[in-house]
């Protein structure tokens, strides 16, 4: 018979698994195509954020909550902070329960050029989110995500 202690260890492992840290990938000039290809047959919410942006953390906390309810929802996170701030990005993701979410961080290339590689029509304000559809549709939203946008993401992902 398994002891209570062993059960609690097992429970911890099961609960902790989805949140296990995965590596943060370096976002480069061609990375946006990789993001699109990864989700070519499904809906994905792409959220661009920074540790400097309080509104971004607010949105990420809400996304983290949605992912706990619906682990099947697809998300990709891109931090615009420079490579030297990798540890701060990692710990922020961890705090928000998003250490297990697919994450990128801007590489050494100039940030304005990486922004233009994602969307030349985007002026750089944060948070910036895109709902990318399998048919190539793209909806860009600046500022905090309206609840309706999160609902739409969940609905399209069924």
């Amino acid at each position: 018979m398994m002891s209570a202690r062993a059960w609690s260890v097992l429970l911890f492992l099961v609960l902790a698994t989805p949140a296990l840290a995965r590596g943060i990938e370096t976002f480069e000039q061609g990375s946006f195509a990789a993001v699109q290809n990864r989700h070519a047959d499904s809906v994905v919410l792409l959220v661009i954020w920074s540790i400097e942006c309080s509104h971004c953390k607010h949105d990420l906390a809400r996304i983290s909550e949605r992912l706990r309810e619906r682990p099947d929802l697809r998300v990709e996170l891109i931090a615009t902070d420079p490579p030297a701030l990798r540890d701060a990005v990692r710990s922020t993701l961890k705090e928000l329960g998003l250490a297990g979410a697919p994450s990128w961080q801007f590489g050494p290339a100039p940030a304005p050029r990486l922004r233009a590689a994602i969307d030349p029509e985007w002026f750089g304000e944060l948070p910036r989110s895109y709902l990318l559809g399998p048919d190539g549709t793209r909806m860009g939203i600046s500022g905090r995500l309206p609840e309706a946008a999160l609902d739409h993401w969940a609905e399209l992902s069924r």
Partner: protein
Amino acid sequence: MAITNAVSRNVAVTLSALLLAVGAWACDADGISIHCGSTPWLVATDDLLLAVFVQDQRVWFSRGSVTGSAFSEPVAVTAVAEAIDHNGESRPKLAIAPNGTLHVTWTRRIDGPFAGEVRYARSVDGGASFTPAVSLHDLDAPVSHRFDALHVTPGGTVHVVWIDKRPHSGGATARGEAHLFHAFSRDGGLTFSSNRHLAGPTCECCRLGLAAADGEGFVLFWRHLFDGSIRDHAFTVVDGRSPDGPADSRIELQRATFEGWDLTGCPHQGPHVIRGDGGHHLAWFTAAPGAGGLHYAFRDTASEQIVRHAHLVARPGADKPQLCADGDHVHYAWRSVSPDGFTLFAASSTDGGRTWQPATELARIQGDADHPQCVQTSTGASFAWHTASEGLRLLQPEGS
């Protein structure tokens, strides 16, 4: 900025012996220079450029020729390395007092969400040495005191304004609303006043515009929060004659831009203001639907009206505009993303901003580049441009 002859003499004495040869800079591991550092702030005198910049987590001071090609051996403003907040929206500032004292401010990052401190040091020997840095905020808590702006009046009063997220009974809340705070020194930077609440709530992540006004006053132009989340700009004149009023007195602000950019987010793009004939030239960015891009307007001092509004740049990839004026000749420069690097553009007006000629390309660079900065030298209006591959350059717009 004009400078007294006393200052010029003071800093010119050792200049010729210290200047680095044109084009002789190379960035190795130990080389400290304005070309190898980043985020410079320049002030022109009659015959010199004075600059502060950041390298190896320290603020440095250097003197250069007005052409910007040769600079003296840098002097450390910060005795030890500290986490200096320097990027497109934040950089050290330098101002020269009429008696020649050099005043420097910058922001130091500290532990805590968005936390920082506004730091100050001065030099009374023409930049040969600087006083130990002090923090100007009078609240000892790890909150955000950032995005410093510095001004020295003709009478020598030193003004520092910054964005502050302290819990505040005058309007800011514990949830971290951002407000403008102000401290000033009437003894040349020896001591500073207590911190004074000026206005708010403001955008929490955008640099401030500050420029001289008549007499001892100055003006502020900043991204405000109207009706909760409208991130347009406000303008105010701070009357320098009696800045030591009630500690919690709010200033009267005027809404200066009207695009109605509704954003619960961070633009990371503050405005710019310079003094012109009869008023102030204003430059700003917005991403409001239908009005996205770079804008210009003039704030007329006599009528207090915002006039001559022009939407100068509508294409994306252009940001953080800079103004430079020489009488009725007004120049409006910005950096723009190009396929392999960045391009510096400038539009010019010969009638004080009433009409604008088409923009021209001032320079094009591969690799990373800073934003332009206005430098008013004896030879006219120039834009300083710092790039990774070519260091600091001064570029003159057409007709300046």
